[in-house]
């Protein structure tokens, strides 16, 4: 038996740490890693609620698997873009990349 607030608090704290990483880091790869933390926090929530609500279709777990897949696609594209930017600009610092900024 597990209190539901345990996984939910873990997930909320992980999400907040991810938010801090996204906002405070300037290296694009560290920003991507922090985004992975936030996606993991959401997955913990999905699995915990799937178990707590006794979903017959296992909706939460299946959706967590889909989120993992989308995260893999996102990190692949993101790192390809980072390497492309590094090749062109010799930097991966997000505060120096302002090509699309008005």
């Amino acid at each position, binding site marked *: 038996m597990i209190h539901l*607030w345990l996984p939910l608090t873990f997930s909320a704290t992980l*999400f*907040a740490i991810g938010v801090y990483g996204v906002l405070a880091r300037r290296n694009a790869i560290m920003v991507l890693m922090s985004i992975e933390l936030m996606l993991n926090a959401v997955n913990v929530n999905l699995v915990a609620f799937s178990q707590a609500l006794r979903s017959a279709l296992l909706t939460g777990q299946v959706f967590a698997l889909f989120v993992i897949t989308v995260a893999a696609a996102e990190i692949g594209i993101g790192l*390809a873009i980072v390497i492309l930017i590094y090749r062109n600009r010799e930097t991966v610092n997000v505060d120096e990349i302002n090509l699309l900024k008005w």
Partner: protein
Amino acid sequence: MTSHEVAFAVLAIVGLISALRMVTTKNMVHGALFLVITLAMVGGVYLLLAAEFVAWVQIVIYVGAIVVLLLFSLMLTRAPIGREALDNQQRGVAAVVAAGVLAGLLVIIQGAFSGTTFTAQPTRIAQVGYAIFRHFVAPFEVVSVLLLGALIGAIALARRDEP
């Protein structure tokens, strides 16, 4: 506290400490290795929640594939060392925003779920496969197309243009 909850708390604390070290470390390679610890602890949390298949997928895809991808891209770009090179000037604002998010979420969790308990039912992998291929076929196909698009897109973006 039951033994389940004690094990859960240990996994959660180790994972959270290494996540904190990941977003504050001065060395990016150490950051990637702290990320490994956090992801493995999240996998352990899935095991404690009796979601076996999600746990192994977490280990294989996150710890196995994504971290290796991150380490390779750290190798291909310059990985600077030092707080000034890795953090921007908004550290205080970022900490305030993160603390606000955490406080809001904790208030909601305490208000809505403070007394709820549950017993994790073990899910067999066959049940997960049945759910995916019987009830979630359309999202599964969409995700497959998304992965194919991401594969082609990553190759097209990262390859050098031959003259």
